[in-house]
């Protein structure tokens, strides 16, 4: 049955191309939508991930990275006093008002982290280096934000205002974007405190590195008596922040809705394609049935064709998705295509093809052998 099915499929090249295109576009849609969703999720927690640490000290009651009030230096000292704790690194992070070169006002996010060798901040520098940001009132900007910040393509040395202080661009990152698309301005922790008026030693968060990850629960228990600070694992904190932005906000719902809509549209496209192909092959199916093929062998005819379309069309779709990813990355949209989203995309594509073949299979099961004599 495989040979008959595949030869029949390959026989009409025009129809095959149309079918492959349909499947390819549907899978592209699935991969890009899922990748975008995950991209937004990741962008909301990317600073947490890159700042690292096993545990994070966060102000009690805080639901999301972006809304913090500061913690005092005593929290840091307390944490550092526990024998399991290897290091404590501050993160100053928050909204600032900016005034662009032409005088218009906007918001941005300032990030200043205590550096450590494995956790370079910012991590995707394309011009300048992290040391340049240690000079007074130096910041980095992201290449994808240049237009928004009204900077030209060679922004190093350009100046604008952050909270009424004039800053100079000393480095450029590529593709570090926040969930809200508010520009990220990376700088040294000293500069960040100065720009945001944070007292020396204080910070919005402390990332805690442990000698042994197994100590995490013990350190968390030990800190539980503290009223205004909580210790959470970095993974939990990332999930919480992602859930706040993507899960909890309307934006996430819209994204999920478009992703699901994309899959439905894809299933309809593939279903249409398959159905019309099955209709085309009804004479062959009736002949096969007359010659004694069982319903399941006939289903095999359709399933072999679906499988070929799914594998080849899906492969093309994935390739297109990768191309789109690099095109969209230039505009700052992050389409995440890592193992997690890839397997979800493949699962979605397979599900789409399976749903799409239902109508075809129904037709196949209803084929009347006697029609060969009509």
């Amino acid at each position, binding site marked *: 049955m495989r040979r008959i099915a595949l030869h029949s*499929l390959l*026989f009409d090249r025009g129809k095959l191309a149309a079918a492959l295109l349909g499947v390819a576009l549907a899978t592209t849609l699935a991969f890009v939508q899922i990748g975008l969703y995950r991209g937004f999720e990741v962008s909301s927690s990317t600073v947490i991930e890159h700042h690292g640490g096993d545990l994070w000290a966060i102000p009690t009651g805080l639901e999301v990275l972006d809304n913090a009030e500061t913690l005092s230096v005593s929290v840091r000292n307390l944490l550092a006093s526990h024998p399991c704790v290897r290091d404590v690194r501050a993160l100053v992070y928050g909204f600032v008002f900016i005034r662009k070169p032409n005088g218009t006002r906007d918001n941005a996010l300032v990030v200043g982290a205590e550096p450590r060798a494995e956790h370079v901040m910012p991590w995707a520098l394309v011009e300048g280096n992290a040391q340049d940001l240690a000079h007074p009132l130096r910041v980095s900007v992201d290449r994808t934000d240049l237009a928004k910040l009204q900077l030209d393509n060679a922004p190093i040395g350009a100046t604008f205002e952050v909270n009424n202080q004039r800053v100079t661009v000393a480095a450029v990152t590529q593709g570090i974007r926040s969930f809200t698309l508010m520009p990220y301005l990376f700088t040294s922790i000293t500069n960040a405190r100065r720009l945001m008026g944070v007292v020396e030693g204080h910070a919005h968060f402390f990332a805690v590195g442990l000698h042994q990850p197994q100590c995490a629960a013990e350190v968390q228990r030990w800190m539980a008596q503290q009223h205004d600070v909580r210790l959470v694992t970095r993974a939990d904190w990332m999930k919480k922040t992602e859930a706040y932005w993507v899960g909890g906000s309307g934006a996430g719902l819209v994204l999920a809705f478009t992703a699901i809509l994309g899959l439905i549209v894809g299933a309809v496209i593939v279903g249409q394609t398959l159905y019309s192909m099955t209709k085309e092959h009804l004479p062959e199916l*009736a002949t096969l049935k007359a010659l004694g093929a069982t319903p399941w062998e006939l289903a095999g005819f359709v399933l072999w064709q679906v499988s070929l379309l799914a594998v080849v069309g899906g492969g093309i779709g994935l390739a297109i998705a990768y191309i789109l990813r690099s095109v969209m990355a230039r505009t700052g949209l992050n389409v995440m295509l890592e193992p997690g989203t890839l397997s979800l995309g493949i699962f979605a594509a397979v599900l789409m093809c399976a749903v799409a073949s239902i109508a075809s299979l129904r037709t196949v099961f209803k084929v009347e052998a006697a029609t*060969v004599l009509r």
Partner: protein
Amino acid sequence: MSGGAAPLVQARNVQKTFKSGRLETQVLHDVSLQLRPGEFTLLMGPSGSGKTTLLSILSGLLRPSSGQVELCGVDISTAQDAVSARVRRRHVGFVFQSYHLFPALNALDNVAEVLVLKGIDRMQARAHAGSMLQRMGLGARLQHLPSELSGGERQRVAIARALAGNPSLIVGDEPTGALDKNTGLSVMGALREQLTPQRGVLIVTHDPRLKQFADRVLEIEDGRIVADYAHTAGVNEAYH
């Protein structure tokens, strides 16, 4: 004629009624007949008399509305689709007026894939298909697609395919209907050659010239068998 052998097909009181909406048309009225191995039978009658319907029922493609049909010892009148499919696969070879070859497969694969469907290993199937097509005089056409063959050649491929798997019964509905006179006669000759003492052939036609190939002629009118007579194959009729 081997009168003693078990019949290939045994039909008793077969009726067929087609329903479409509230309209009911009775197409076959109380048809009883036997088809025996070693017999080349022609089913003749005017257009609309029920030839195709009867052939479909006798070969297990269609269920009768009432009555009983045994095909190679299996009662297929009430059997499930899967059962009659198995009987067709094992025992029946089909030749159709419009060939119904697989357009995407070459002549060799058209025959071989049906053998594969019947459970024969592909290497063997291809070898067997090749020799069968050779015997049909198509040795030089094995790699041709159906669209690259003449009508007569296509029908010979179809006959080779019908013979694949060595069926006990070969049925054909107007197998020469789309062919010119001489090609039609040579295709009938090829079919006649397939007759063996173990195998029966049933051909529907309304071309009286084809009687020369038959051992037996059944005539049907308005869904009733009105004549059933022996015929000596090879004797030319007045029409010829």
